[in-house]
């Protein structure tokens, strides 16, 4: 029942926000609803760790497996942190007269609808309903990307809407093809379980075609190269918390849904086909994003390409298999956490410097000491510097590929090193040196860095210690995927 409560709570919050005429009511309602979602997400994760698969009610509408529970947990945490941050972030923007009350209201209505769509997508037991929910995430976020109503923001949102809609329609077509293994006239709502158990009846060639479509479709949402083109534009134009959500929550959701089809196609044609595709898309994403990151001029676009690169690392992990899968699941968790740290910190930079250009940001460590330190820690985490967990996950993934795909692993290693150099180059330019005279020193508000501190703490803890329930979930997910 927890999932019902999460969805109903968030939906009611969206309605209250829509009807409310007081900013404080909107803020309180949003924070409380995201807190309730977080608490219930933890309950769901604990239940799945003890039950294996959790099917609330009759299991007709919702079904949560181990990997789904990990993502629900991630979504709960990322959602709560971004909501807290959003409250203060939008207050600052209101003070600067960048936005007015109507925009704040619009933001929180859409934010809650975005949460509803994401929770539905990851917990839905039906592949078509999951698709509808993913499409709903596109619709709820289009206006969040065009939030500032500037020509560039409208252009970014338009690209996002069109590219994702086409991609998802291709994904929908692929999804339909997977249903050829089932006699639909005798079955009502088809769930993931039915689709998986009937995978053996799939025509192998058709299964391959179907998976290619699904990979392109959901790969567009994930941001695999070459379907990534919307990502830097959308991330750079959306408010910072929305960037964190797109990268830290929506990306893993789309990734997990794609993986569910991988399980089905693996049964039909063996694992080699999907693994090869994931390795190709993964490596391509790492190489292209690393090359572009080196010459990045905008720090929000830099983070967007970093997100693409990390999606590539995850794909490599699942492509290599074995230990790579364990590491890739852990990588998804770390990646979502570090996205919050980095995106929210760039929000602080944007508030202070009023520019997303790397060239215009100097001496940020002196201007925003806490944000500066958090950003630098985020940089060390995301580039895979020890002792943080992402070092281990990248190491495990590459070593998993060393035996059968040594060339791929070495190429990936080289470009991951280039990513480190790129981040070092840009972050050194931004955080060190003398600050511009017209920029005042000091953090804007304590609530603009508390969520990042929370997530750095979580990453540090998870780098050295995995709670037993999380370990159980990861182990079960490894067996399943």
């Amino acid at each position: 029942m927890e999932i019902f409560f999460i969805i109903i709570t968030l939906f009611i919050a969206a309605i209250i926000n829509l009807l409310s005429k007081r900013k404080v009511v909107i803020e309180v309602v949003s924070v409380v609803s995201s807190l309730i979602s977080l608490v219930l997400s933890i309950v769901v994760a604990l239940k799945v760790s003890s039950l294996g698969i959790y099917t609330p009610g009759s299991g007709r509408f919702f079904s949560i497996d181990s990997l789904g529970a990990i993502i629900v947990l991630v979504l709960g945490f990322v959602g709560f942190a971004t909501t807290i941050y959003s409250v203060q972030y939008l207050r600052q923007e209101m003070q600067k007269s960048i936005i007015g009350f109507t925009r704040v209201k619009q933001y929180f209505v859409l934010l809650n609808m975005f949460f509803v769509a994401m929770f539905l997508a990851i917990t839905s037991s039906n592949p078509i309903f999951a698709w509808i929910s993913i499409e709903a995430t596109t619709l709820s976020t289009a206006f969040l990307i065009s939030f500032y109503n500037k020509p560039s923001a409208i252009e970014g949102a338009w690209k996002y809407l069109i590219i994702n809609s086409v991609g998802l329609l291709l994904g929908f077509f692929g999804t339909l093809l997977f249903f050829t293994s089932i006699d639909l006239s005798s079955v009502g709502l088809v769930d993931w379980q039915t689709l998986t158990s009937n995978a053996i009846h799939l025509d192998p060639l058709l299964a391959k075609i179907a998976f290619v479509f699904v990979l392109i479709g959901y790969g567009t949402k994930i941001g695999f190269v070459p379907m990534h083109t919307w990502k830097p534009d959308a991330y750079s134009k959306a408010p910072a918390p929305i960037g964190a959500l797109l990268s830290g929550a929506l990306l893993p959701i789309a990734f997990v849904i794609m993986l569910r089809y991988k399980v089905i196609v693996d049964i039909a044609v063996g694992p080699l086909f999907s693994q090869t595709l994931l390795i190709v898309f993964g490596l391509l994403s790492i190489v292209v994003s690393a090359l572009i990151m080196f010459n990045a001029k905008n720090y929000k676009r830099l983070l967007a390409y970093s997100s693409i690169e990390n999606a590539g690392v995850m794909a490599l992990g699942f492509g290599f298999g074995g230990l790579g899968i364990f590491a890739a699941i852990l990588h998804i968790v770390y990646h979502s956490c570090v996205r919050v740290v980095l995106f929210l910190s760039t929000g602080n930079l944007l508030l202070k410097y009023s520019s997303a250009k790397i060239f215009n940001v100097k001496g940020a460590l002196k201007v925003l000491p806490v944000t500066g330190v958090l950003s630098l820690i985020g940089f060390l985490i995301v580039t895979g510097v020890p002792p943080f967990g992402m070092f281990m996950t990248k190491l495990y993934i590459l070593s998993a590929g060393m035996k059968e795909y040594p060339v791929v692993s070495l190429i990936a290693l080289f470009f991951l090193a280039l990513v480190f150099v790129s981040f070092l180059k840009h972050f050194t330019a931004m955080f060190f040196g003398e600050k511009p005279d017209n920029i005042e020193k000091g953090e804007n508000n304590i609530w603009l860095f508390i969520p990042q501190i929370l997530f750095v703490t979580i990453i540090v803890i998870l780098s050295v210690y995995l709670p037993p329930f999380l370990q159980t979930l990861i182990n079960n997910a490894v067996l399943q995927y």
Partner: protein
Amino acid sequence: MNLLTLQFLSEIVLLSVVFLLIMKKNVSAVYTYALQSLVVVIILLNSFFETKDLWMLLVILVMLIVKVIVAPKFFISLIKKYALSFSVSTYLNTPITLIVIAVLIFIAHSQKFVPLTSIVSDHQMLLSLALSSMFLSLFLIVNRKGALSQIIGILSFENSIVMFAVFAELEQSASLQLGIIFNIFIWIMIASIFISMLYKHFGTLNVSSMKKLKD
């Protein structure tokens, strides 16, 4: 309906996409899309007569309202509001467009796609036509510079997928189909709002003139 009638209807859908690719006037494109949607509704009606499922009838009715009446009405009002009587140009000229159309139809009917077109062996021709419509709709989206044409291209692509699903006997339950149509309805409204926003900020719906993101 017999196979020949269904084939005739599928050919109308295919021809409608060809027309969308070569026409110049936005109003004609909108009416062509309405006609295409009407044909898809008729194809779905055929499947209702086979199943006699009343929920299916509701789906068809909602689809008729959304795709044949509401969406074209939205688009026509946009065209009138912004005086968009002529559509912006294409990336490829008409002769090359026609060649690409021929090639895409040939590919859809080729042996390469037999796994897709033989899902229901009796419907191989129908599925090939649906696949051709899908390919052409995708080409429509990438070849047109106009934002409105891109929207119609996406909706045409969706119509083609629906047609494919019906012929491949992959229709989903009525509740899911209602969910999909609701999604499409919202998508149409949002896309229409974006059309207004694009026109307000850029003074044109030519997407090739949008270059504000080059930083």
